[in-house]
């Protein structure tokens, strides 16, 4: 773990004076400095509108910062060209509250999508997707369409899709927001297991009990400013 603004040699993610504003003078993020080390599981917390989602979107290059630098794996992605975005995203897994699964594709196809876009052969895609589904306990549902699965199962599919490409960084935006407490723990255990295997994980959540239960480093945002960056 690394204190606010202090660059570590093993940091996977570093942000230097990052600000994001959509209107002049109205900041979604203001002068954020942080460093996240490889293999860390970090919680990003704060009330609604604090800038959690904006920070995650900056990390997977869905948006560009108005100011500052974002270094991921040694590369500044703050001014990434559109054509360079896909290669960045192949190193990052993203999980959302609303799962974002393709309804017309099977569970296995949804998971395999991450590998398919890289041009991996279909047999390899199916084999790796199956192994990943086995890890999340859904191998028996691989031929089903996602809509026939429960919310918890759909989120497990989304996690499988995010992890099947063995990303360096996993970003989860309120991954348990739609789930009941029991399923929440099930999903969080899967995410924590990914961190234990060496994946750097950032989980945005406003669920205080979750943060307390896992006792990991917390980055707290309020009105776009990072007000707490340590455990």
């Amino acid at each position, binding site marked *: 773990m690394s204190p606010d603004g202090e660059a570590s040699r093993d940091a996977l993610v570093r942000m230097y004076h990052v600000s994001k504003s959509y209107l002049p003078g109205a900041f979604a993020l203001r002068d954020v400095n942080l460093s996240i080390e490889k293999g860390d599981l970090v919680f990003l917390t704060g009330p609604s509108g604090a800038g959690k989602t904006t920070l995650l979107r900056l990390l*997977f290059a*869905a948006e560009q910062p108005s100011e500052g630098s974002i270094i991921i794996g040694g590369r500044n992605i703050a001014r990434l060209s*559109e*054509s360079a*975005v*896909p*290669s*960045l*995203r*192949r190193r990052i897994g*993203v999980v959302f509250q609303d799962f*974002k*699964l*393709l309804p*017309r594709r099977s569970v296995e196809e949804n998971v395999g*999508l*991450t590998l*398919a*876009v*890289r*041009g*991996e*052969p*279909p047999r390899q895609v199916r084999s790796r997707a199956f192994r990943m589904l086995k890890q999340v306990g859904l191998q028996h549902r691989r031929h089903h369409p996602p809509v026939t699965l429960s919310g918890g199962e759909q989120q497990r599919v989304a996690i499988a*899709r995010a992890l099947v*490409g063995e990303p360096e960084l996993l970003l989860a935006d309120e991954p348990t927001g739609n789930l009941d407490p029991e399923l929440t723990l099930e999903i969080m255990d899967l995410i924590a297991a990914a961190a234990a295997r060496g994946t750097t994980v950032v989980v945005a959540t406003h669920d205080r009990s979750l943060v307390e239960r896992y006792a990991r480093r917390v980055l707290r945002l309020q009105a776009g400013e990072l007000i707490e960056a340590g455990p």
Partner: protein
Amino acid sequence: MTSLWRAIYFIRTATDGLRSSPVTTAVAVGTIATTLVVMGVFGLALKQMSGIVDRVGQDLTVSAYLEPSVDDAAARALATRVATVEGVASVEVVTREEALRRFQGVAGDRTGLLDGLVENPLPASLEISLASGERHEEGIERLVEAIRGLPGIAEIEHGQEWVGTYERVLAGLRAVSMGLGAVFALAALLIVSNTIRLAIYARRDEVEILALVGASRGFIGTPFLLEGALQGAAGSLLALGVLYLGFRVVVAVSGSALAFLIGHAEPVFFDAPEAIAFVLAGAALGCVGSLSALGSAWRPA
């Protein structure tokens, strides 16, 4: 292997996309077909007109009247010389006797007009046909310049002015047809473009998810391009069918009236290469429409 798999994936995704929104697909194909039918009608009309031009061109000759002193042997020698002039396809010697026979044939029962004459007053002539690339105003002018002043030629008669006027009218008609074709092509382009834009909008979640997992713009866009091409090809095939049926009905119903309009020639439909070009043009139209839609609808997640 990867390329083959990608091709299969793209085709499957494109056909899935078309199947998943049958109403939008049917409307797009129908609208493209309607536009292409209108363009096809103009194309067919131009084709019949081109046929008339070709036939007129075949009949187009320049007549060089010979001096009375030129006998048949000298006329043949002169014909051989004229045949070597650039742009000349053939030369026929019309002797004075032949000219008289032709006159009698044309005059019919009014041949009494010649009764008072002691001697055949008609001169011998050379009837010169132009090569296909020279059947225009400038071609005739070049030929006249080349043979004017040759010993034995007294006078040259040609339909240069008439040909010039006819050519200008045809060029105008072609320009109008091409202009209208361009307008209809643009309309078809906008229709395809908007349809694909709707398809992208309807599947924006899919586009967003693909972009999230690292799909390149080409990977996401290619199925949409294929959809546009398939819609264009289907629309043009439908249009071709409608045009053929319409053509057959018009030929059957109008009968001799149509034959008269197009100069007593057999009305012709598009031949195989033209039909293939029509379908390919439809597919290309769909592709370009999709490209335009992708250009404006593309927003990475």
